[in-house]
């Protein structure tokens, strides 16, 4: 279970103040940007939690904090009771992070890439080959497993990225707009993969802009606006709360709401 407790994050502004910022972007006081303010929610085990919000609302910052890449200014979060600020290494052992940017080393083969991250996660040699074979079969990667990453198609790269995310069998998977730039078939494969993770009892934090993906996958959603939580509940509750019949409209209503 993930418990996010009153997380806030502020940055010092650097350089000149930009004009024409989105209304949805975080509040700025003097030279300090409040990217997140007092964000609190929970995600139960085996749940897909949709993380919604317009551009600049703080979704990526929140995911970076939960994945321990950034430290919160105040507040904290726990993964099955393990605090992200107290024990970040232990948290990293339990999470897998998948984004639209596949983040692959082009000069490594798909197999070398997966092996490299398996070793970073401390997987022992005798377990390594079996685990990689499992992932190759799970994601149908056999035909390109020994090809260099920079020669692979977008869909193949995303599969390697998924294998890298899953190689240490994490309890929590964070997914940041994973279908961006993929064709329909590749995007569908990703969504099927996310769905299959739920059936295996994994907790999934799923950041997306596509409401049909939310409708298809999410058990619960949290929505951010200007760095603050503006809604938390199920997709149906989101419709009821906004009085809309489609999630796209409900999203826009929440994104444009004042206050």
């Amino acid at each position: 279970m993930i418990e996010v407790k009153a997380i806030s994050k502020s940055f010092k502004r650097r350089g000149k103040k930009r004009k024409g910022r989105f209304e949805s972007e975080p509040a700025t006081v003097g030279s300090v940007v409040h990217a997140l303010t007092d964000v609190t929610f929970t995600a139960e085990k085996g749940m897909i939690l949709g993380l919604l919000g317009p551009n600049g609302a703080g979704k990526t910052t929140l995911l970076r904090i939960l994945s321990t890449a950034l430290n919160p200014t105040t507040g904290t979060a726990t993964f099955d009771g393990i605090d992200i600020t107290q024990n970040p290494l232990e948290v990293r052992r339990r999470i897998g992070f998948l984004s639209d940017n596949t983040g692959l080393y082009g000069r490594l083969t798909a197999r070398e890439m997966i092996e490299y991250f398996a070793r970073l996660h401390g997987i022992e040699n005798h377990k390594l080959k079996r685990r990689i074979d499992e992932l190759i079969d799970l994601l149908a990667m056999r035909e390109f497993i020994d090809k260099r990453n920079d020669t692979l198609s977008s869909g193949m790269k995303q599969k390697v990225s998924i294998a890298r995310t899953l190689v240490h069998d994490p309890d929590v998977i964070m997914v940041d707009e994973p279908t961006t730039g993929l064709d329909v078939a590749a995007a569908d494969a990703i969504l099927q993969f996310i769905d299959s993770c739920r059936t295996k009892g994994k907790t999934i934090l799923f950041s997306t802009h596509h409401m049909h993906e939310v409708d298809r996958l999410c058990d619960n959603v949290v929505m951010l606006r200007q760095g603050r939580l503006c809604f938390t509940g199920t997709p149906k509750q989101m419709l009821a709360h906004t009085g809309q019949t489609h999630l796209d409209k409900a999203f826009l209503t929440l994104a444009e709401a004042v206050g």
Partner: protein
Amino acid sequence: MFLMPTIIVPVLMNVLVGFTMHMEKKARTETLRYAIFGEEYLPELGEVFEKEQGFEKVNISSPNDINTAIASEEIRFAIVIPETSRQQLEESNQVTIRLYYNNATVASMASTRAAKAIRVISDQLRNERLTKLGFDNKQSRNNLLNPVTIEEHGTANMREILGERLGGMLPYLFIIFSFMGAMYTAIDIGAGEKERGTLETLLLAPVPRCQIVLGKFLVLFTTGVTSALLCLTSIGLILSTKGKEVTGAMQEVLRSIGVIDFVLVGAMLIPTAAIFASLLLCISIYARSCREAGFYCTPLNMVVIVPVVIAMLPGIELNWITALLPVMNISLAIKELLKGTMDYLILAVILGSTFIIAGVLLAFTTWWFGREAVLFRE
């Protein structure tokens, strides 16, 4: 990284030295075409040019065509002897012979070789005049012409002289290689990782950030130090093989540069490469893209080159002040080692201070790498 110091630089050095020697030999031995006007007024001079090897007389119509003939390389030089030459000589006056040549051609020895031939006649005529005055032997003439002479006694041995000249160039190569060897790798493993998105995935691995920094630092340190040591080794091999071909004082000089000297030069390049590795990693991890990192590396390159170039300037010596100036001290110390005049107490201070700077910079890099404003700079 491996090709440059092991093959390209030695090959370039061999080609450069070979080409320079070939050009010098050509300039000394090539046949120079020349024109002479007024030869009838001083026929002895014409005879000298005919006797000397390497000159070929060419007839051109008028002295007005000299410039055109030299520009078109029909001739390399021309001599114009004035009509009054014989009369001037008989009256014991001075004759001025005009020598025309292309003085924009630096490598040409045309004027030197022509002047040398003219001096033969000048010396001959001077000796005739001195004989008439009663100075009929070489010693008495020399005493008349040079009442006071200087006998120079340079205290430096050949190794010092050669070390002073070569010793500026070699540290430049070693230091630049330890910097350039790490630069492109640094751009790739810092800004390149950011650009590709692999840095963020790496940061999410259950590995402490100091270990990631140390890993990246070791890669850069290894490439920098390997590059510099390969350059040092290849130059050492060139000196040891070419040293067998040369003879005399030069052979003594090359033999006197021992393995210990090269080991000490290598020892100084180790902390230097560590300093560069830390600086390059800081810059690269700060940059948002490879292009930006390259943009920042250019001024750093200048910061590295300038002290090395200053160390090459005449009059810049290793002392307790220059020993405390990073990079310049390494350059000067390498020079002193090659000259064989190293003060080993200063060497120890330089090594110690460079290791301390390298350590401080590595600690700074670790702190720098932990800053969110650097890693996630937008």
